[in-house]
């Protein structure tokens, strides 16, 4: 069943002004419950605009969006439906405002009307999910490092138990360890709750590793929406629209181009390893 249906969606910024920008053109999209969708596309291709439309922050210029069968419009827009879509903004650090991390994470759940008990449980669960120590809960969010702030901000959204979690470039500006940790946490979170996750990233390896399907955006339009394997087999076309393929896919491709018989439908390190071992074993037997 699809949790998210988008029909003929278009969005124009500053309509009627000289600075008018068409950000999205006639988008049609359907995302299934429990799916992990990665969104890629070069800077300015409309990714952030798309996800902001999904949680009702901005209204479509034309077209409509259905979430769990309900249209995102009018009365629905302001309340439950929107809060069911948790959006972690690009650079979410600036949304922190409370005296302590605990209070800040509790802000969303409280607005959603959870009981104090439930809020507490949610706060503790979500801080663990993002990989921070419980001792952080008593600290002021303003004396944390950039990466820690990012994690607290993400925890603040996760604590609201959204049925669709959207992350806009969650790993931008984090160190390799932090990035790795965050990606693992997102995967674990998805495994534990089985809810829909949509995330935007410029790192093809991350996209390949976690997504069931990949949405490729180009200049406000959907270029393709398919499994990572199919998407990343279109290297030349991707490169034309300013994107790339994962390193491992490149390596395996190069080996194949040298004339070796290797399975090049590979997008993650694990799959690459498998293909390589198969190739080596096959050669040994000969």
């Amino acid at each position, binding site marked *: 069943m699809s949790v998210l249906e988008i029909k003929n969606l278009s969005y124009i910024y500053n309509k*009627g002004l000289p600075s008018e920008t068409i950000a999205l053109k006639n988008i049609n999209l359907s995302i299934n419950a429990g799916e992990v969708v990665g969104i890629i596309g070069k800077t300015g291709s409309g990714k952030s605009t798309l996800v902001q439309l999904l949680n009702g922050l901005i209204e479509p210029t034309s077209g409509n969006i259905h979430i769990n069968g309900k249209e995102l419009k009018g009365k629905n827009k302001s309340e439950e439906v929107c809060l069911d879509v948790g*959006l972690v903004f690009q650079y979410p650090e600036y949304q922190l405002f409370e005296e302590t991390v605990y209070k800040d994470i509790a802000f969303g759940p409280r*607005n959603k009307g959870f009981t104090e008990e439930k809020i507490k449980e949610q706060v503790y669960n979500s801080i663990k999910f993002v990989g921070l120590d419980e001792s952080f809960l008593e600290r002021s969010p303003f004396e944390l490092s950039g990466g820690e702030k990012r994690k607290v901000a993400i925890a603040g959204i996760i604590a609201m138990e959204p049925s669709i979690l959207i992350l806009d470039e969650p790993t931008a500006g984090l160190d390799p360890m932090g990035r790795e940790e965050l990606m693992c946490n997102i995967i674990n979170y998805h495994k534990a709750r089985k809810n829909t996750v949509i995330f935007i990233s410029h790192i093809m390896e991350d996209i390949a590793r976690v997504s069931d399907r990949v949405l490729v955006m180009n200049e406000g339009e959907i270029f393709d929406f398919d499994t990572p394997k199919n998407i990343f087999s279109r290297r030349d076309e991707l490169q034309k629209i300013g994107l790339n393929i994962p390193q491992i896919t490149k390596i395996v491709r190069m080996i194949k181009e040298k004339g070796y018989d290797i399975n090049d439908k590979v997008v993650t390190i694990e799959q690459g390893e498998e293909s390589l071992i198969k190739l080596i074993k096959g050669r040994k037997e000969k």
Partner: protein
Amino acid sequence: MLGNIVLGQYIPGNSLIHKLDPRVKILLSIVYMMALFFAWNYLSIIVVTLSVLALMFLSKIPVKLYIKSTKVIILFMILSAFLNLFYGEGEPIFKIGFISITQQGIQSSILVVLRIIDLIFISSILMFTTSPNDITFAIESLMKPLEKIKVNVQEIAMMMTIALRFIPTFLEETDKIMSAQKSRGAKFNDKSMIKRIKSLIPILMPLFISAFRRACDLALAMDCRCYDSSKRRTRMKTLKIGRIDIFAIIFLIVLFVGVIICSKMKNIAII
């Protein structure tokens, strides 16, 4: 949503009005406002209004935006029209109880509304067609004589430039923070006043923090480049009075004199 604030927003373009020297534009706007002050009868206000409409047309900016900018004070406009309507002297043409409406009352309320609209249009033309930087540059240049009495004009101009420069940034940032808090379920339109004030905290806190951070960063960056406000410096762009500016000045002088003459022509009723 904050993008709706039109007042004080520069819209790039290269119309005749855009090309005018900002100093000339500022001075001319002041002259225009003075002309409005003298326009006390229909004829003179019509002359002014028509010329303002012509300038609006020349600026090549959508009329919609001009109309939008009047919305801010529409209440004020209605109020002054109302008051003027009842305070006219002379023969009443309409009377209910102690309320009477005179010919003069009608005239002055029409005049007042037209004047306010013209006033807004004039300032809108100036703000829409002149970049904030040009405005401060022009003000700095116009304030030059004050240096004689030891006023640090450059410092004032720099402060103005910085303040103007950061207005859009803060609006954008407020928008971003509001969106982020909204997606965490924050409500900004609660019925109760106290709750409403409380709901501002999640916006104001991050905004202040980022404002202070920005101020510190900027001060540091200026220090790093050895900025010293007492040093004389040159500009990348220099202002020059060109041919259009001369034309504009002549046009304005003619208009100003015309308005004064028109306003002296007592009650040549054209309506």
